């Protein structure tokens, strides 16, 4: 059992133990570091009245709506385009689409903060061209979430593209040849062959996207710098704020437990749904 001992030791220390501690902590009024009194469900009872919690919850939901389906659609469109290319050209084009995904979030932040810079950003020329008034997009509440969603799609799309390409490659070429013989139009071929055969991959991409976007923090935190973090509040940000800026470990833990449960419920529901839809003819 020497084989599993290191793994088990690591998991006990940094996974099982902190998870149990998280639940215990959420029933106390402890600060970030140090012990607290048991307060029952008070930390949870406060949440329905907590305005900032509502903001965090609705912004997270808003962000999910802005990224999951649009991001998946964009990735699918790009994958369909890239899959038609061959050899070196395909490798090159794929690399161009994939490169953002490989970069750290802080690099993404610097690039887009510069591109969208109110005074000197190159995107502002595009705004001028389209006749849109220049705005400091990351400082204005109405613009913030859609812009961060846009940047996130740009950043993470490469991952979904790879999965779609793997899925497209798995569809036998003979099926397409048969469709061509039948003179099927491009749209019809997509609708009747590609889409249904690709559905398991599409479901997988949607699931992965949904779960990872619920946990958004990094981009929101970075782009909020010098802006309005309280208006842009998302769930993980709120955990961070309560725990690390307000020193309220217990209250932060309660919010963390709520997010924890949301992610688990969504994962399980998703799993069941894809299993049901996978059974359809």
């Amino acid at each position, binding site marked *: 059992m020497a084989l599993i001992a290191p793994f088990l030791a690591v998991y006990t220390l940094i996974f099982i133990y*902190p998870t149990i501690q*998280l639940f215990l902590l959420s029933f106390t009024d402890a600060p970030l*570091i140090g012990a607290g009194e048991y307060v029952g469900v008070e930390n949870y009872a406060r949440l329905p009245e907590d305005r900032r919690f509502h903001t965090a919850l609705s912004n997270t939901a808003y962000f999910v709506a802005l990224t999951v389906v649009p991001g998946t659609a964009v990735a699918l469109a790009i994958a369909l385009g890239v899959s038609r290319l061959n050899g070196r050209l395909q490798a090159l084009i794929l690399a161009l689409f994939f*490169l953002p995904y490989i970069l750290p979030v802080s690099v993404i932040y610097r690039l887009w903060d510069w591109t969208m*810079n109110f005074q*000197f950003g190159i995107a502002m020329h595009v705004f001028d061209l389209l006749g849109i008034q220049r705005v400091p997009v990351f400082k204005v509440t109405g613009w913030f979430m859609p812009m961060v969603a846009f940047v996130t799609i740009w950043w993470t799309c490469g991952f979904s593209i790879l999965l779609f390409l793997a899925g497209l490659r798995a569809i036998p070429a003979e099926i397409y040849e048969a469709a061509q013989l039948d003179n099927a139009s491009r749209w019809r071929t997509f609708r009747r062959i590609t889409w249904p055969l690709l559905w398991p991959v599409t479901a*997988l991409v949607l699931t992965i996207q949904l779960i990872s976007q619920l946990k958004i923090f990094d981009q929101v935190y970075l782009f909020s710098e010098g802006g309005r973090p309280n208006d842009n509040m998302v769930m993980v940000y709120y955990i961070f704020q309560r725990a690390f800026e307000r020193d309220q470990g217990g209250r932060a833990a309660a919010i963390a437990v709520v997010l*924890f449960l949301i992610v688990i419920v969504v994962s399980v529901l998703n799993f069941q749904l894809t299993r049901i839809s996978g059974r359809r003819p």
Partner: protein
Amino acid sequence: MNAAALKRLNAGAAIITVLTVICAVIWAFPIYWGIVSSLKPDDEVVRPYIELWPDTFTLEHYIFALTETQIGIWYINSIATAVGVTVLTIGTSIFCAYAISQLRFPLRQPLWWLILASFMVPTQVLIINHFVLMAEMRLLNSWAGIILPQLIHPVVVIVYKQFFDQVPRDFREAAIMDNASEWRMLFRIYIPMNWGVTTALSIVTFIWTWNAFLWPFLAVTRTEMMTITVGITQTNDAFGVYYASELAAAVLAGLPVALAYLLFQRKVTQAITLSAGIKG
């Protein structure tokens, strides 16, 4: 199919190809723009019109980033922690996956469930308790403190288990006839047969850790212990409003992972599709 229809189809295909290429160029443009801007002198950076190619190239912003910030130390911190996480994750996972795949022991099923369960638990919700734990162990502001909470990568165990499951039983039976120990079988058969997976998983684990933001950001408060991913966002004062210097630092931070990807494109692609549960 008649000739006219064929022509239309070909024209359609050509248009889609051209569109894809144009989109790819636009897609990657912000990266190009960031790099080019970091190579321009300050007065050119803030010109009110678009200049796709600099009049004069300068490395002054790179020299500034390298000499006036602690980017050198951040590099070392990033390399040390990323290598640490990679080695420890691959090491512990490979043994564990081998045991689950090839051996029968009492805790086997619960252990497998635990791994699958941890796949669903968002590590972001554990930040409070990771912080408390690391504070109690006096590991904040240290490499070990950055590394430890990042060792939850259940996907590595899952991928290894799949591959070990596929190694033909004959090898194992032959080795047992030779009285080989489990360790010997692991190191002589199972690991060498799956080198490809190991390199692929190592590269992406390294990239994931290099790019990690939330935990390294919380675990470190002292500037000289920061990883580069965190460091370049924490020095607004050092840069003032010099956009080009910020971009130069960002280019330096992204360069290692971008190079790792461009050099090992195949491996990265394979590891990512595998980690999503698709056979590459």
